């Protein structure tokens, strides 16, 4: 649940630190309103609704300079229907297969970036590469994985 909530907020803020802040606030509200959740209803949808309110409050209180997106683009992104839980599950399941196709270096980079959460600058320095080069390599791997996921889902 946390990665999906994180992804939901990140997509709307496009800023990692701000996303962590809003994620924490959302979690606290979920905590405070835990007894309001009705078993049998969609837990994911409930948490996303809370996140949406927190995002609105966050944007309202930030100066425009700190926000990546203008109101127009924010609304366009927010209006886009988020994929359903079933689709997300299918994507995760496909991704688990797709990562097996990565070579050793690619797997290692994904592990470092995601599981170990090592800052890109540190990875770049240990690999003796520029930050931009590491960023591009990650971007290419994600693109490749995205295409693989699409193929598997379409099957």
């Amino acid at each position: 649940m946390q990665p999906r909530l994180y992804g939901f907020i990140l997509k709307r803020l496009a800023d990692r630190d701000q996303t962590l802040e809003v994620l924490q606030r959302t979690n606290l509200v979920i905590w405070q309103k835990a007894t309001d959740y009705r078993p049998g209803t969609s837990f994911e949808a409930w948490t996303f609704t809370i996140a949406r309110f927190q995002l609105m409050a966050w944007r309202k209180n930030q100066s425009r300079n700190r926000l990546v997106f203008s109101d127009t683009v924010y609304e366009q992104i927010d209006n886009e229907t988020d994929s359903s839980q079933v689709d997300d599950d299918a994507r995760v399941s496909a991704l688990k297969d797709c990562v097996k196709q990565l070579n050793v270096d690619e797997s290692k980079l994904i592990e470092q970036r995601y599981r170990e959460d090592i800052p890109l600058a540190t990875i770049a320095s240990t690999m003796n590469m520029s930050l931009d080069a590491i960023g591009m390599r990650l971007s290419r791997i994600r693109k490749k994985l995205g295409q693989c996921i699409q193929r598997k889902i379409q099957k």
Partner: protein
Amino acid sequence: MRDNIDSAELDRLISLSTDQSLSHSDAQKLDSILENSAEAQQRYNELHKTHTALCEVFPSRMLRDFASPQAQDVFSPSRMVAHSSSRQPGRLVPRIQLAAALSICLLIGLTGYMIGKNGGEPYVATPDLTHTDTTPIPKNTPTKKKTWGGVESTLTGHAVLRKTIDVSWPNDEQKITDGSLLPPGGFAFSGGVAVIDFFCGATLVVEGPAQLDVISDWAVSVKNGRIEATVPPAAQGFIVKAAGTDIIDLGTRFALDMSEGRAQVAVIDGEVLLRGKQFDDDLLQAGEQTSLDREAVDSEFLSRIPQLDAIEQQSRDDLKKQHASYRHFMKELAADPRLIALFPAEKKFTGRRYPNIAKTDFASAGQLLGLVETVPGRFEKESVGVLMSRPGSRIRTKINGTFSAYTFSCWAKINSLKHKYNALFLSDGYENGEPHWQIRHDGKLMFSVMVDDSQELFYSTGPNSPPIQDKGLHHVYFSDAVWMPSMTGQWVHLAAVYDPAARLVTQYVNGTVTCQEKILNEFVIDTLQIGAAEIGNWGQPFRKTPDFAVRNLDGVIDEMIILNAALSSDEIHDIYVVGRVH
């Protein structure tokens, strides 16, 4: 719309936004690219989906610690310090709070799962029969327990509050909702009846005023209240502690009266063992009763004990009576000449036809389209509601005629407001005199009627769609936010009255006015019409692309009423009262 995007530049910006952070100029660049290109937005969405899936498959410690039961050490203070010092500690909420908050996500999800499945493996605590604390029951918090297989998430609870009927809680803080787990500790209520299932299998029906202390899966202490205990074979040995005595059930049913200074027990079926004070493992058998405090036994007390079967039957009877009264009201309403359409919450559906019972001939029956599900309505099995959770779900109708005012009324059980606009009732084309009634994502009701569709403007229906031509002069009448996530799953009665003669738009929630706004001269239109329209979604059959605005209401709608009249607040209140289920 500019669609010649620089993919490499876009990918660089998206990567920066997910992996690091964007400079101010890069942020502006990304915003500008996304604003001007549907293709860029699609790419942005796709890359985010992959990124989110990667976060899930390879969760970082921060996300993993709370999403997996494997790593218990996240709760250690040293790790909290290590984490919080790594980034902008001044702005961040302390990690301990985050840990707690994130944990609750697991708790709620798991509770929902357990209750939803009516199973799961609850944490079985070692029975502690010496516990007599009656402090209020704390909110459930998840714990982690080492087992032979590793570390397993657990919940604290010995029983489930299955059902309450007219229970009065001391205050909102101490209110326990139906289906909640009852951890060790005391709770009290001043009136009504509560049904509690202990994990050992025993069921207590408790009539207030009552004060109980849950001790374990196998034991409860009763200070006040009238109780019927049903103890199946699996729960033999269940103990009710009262007036210094342990009442140990050896199977089947007994009653306990701890009200108005009395302390007496009677066995209805089977036998119980009494231990403590004046008792020395004395056996009490079916038909026998005794006082626990040496006072005389009130022979009538059994008749005052609540009985589960009788209570459930009463509850069903009440619902039936209420439903009968509702049907009578609907039948009378159906003959009201002011009625345009009436789609009642009746249980009889023929195929995918949603009956309109209005005697007037303005409106056709509704047609269920897409993955619309019929589910129990407000009167449970006596009625049906229509679940509209899928984007393609819709109920279409056609309404002919012209009208001089509108009243819309419906019941809705909303799961979430997941779209920007969430439909209640929307006419297809939104031409002159046609109504749109919906709820915005922030919980505000919106009612509007097109005044002059000859004016043109362009309106975006989504990042992947070209703008559609929208039409001119209209005013949206907003309420304050009337729905919030805490109302998920609750039935709410909504109504909107458009009264051109009085130049007023009034909206109602649960029979009470929530907002009223004057219709300004420029927005007055007194010839109203509807045409093709949808309940719970928006049909746009004349659009020029396959894309459609997603406005389906994620929830259940039942009993849509449309009248060619501006109903008074009393009439709206009557509709609410007769349809409200206690």
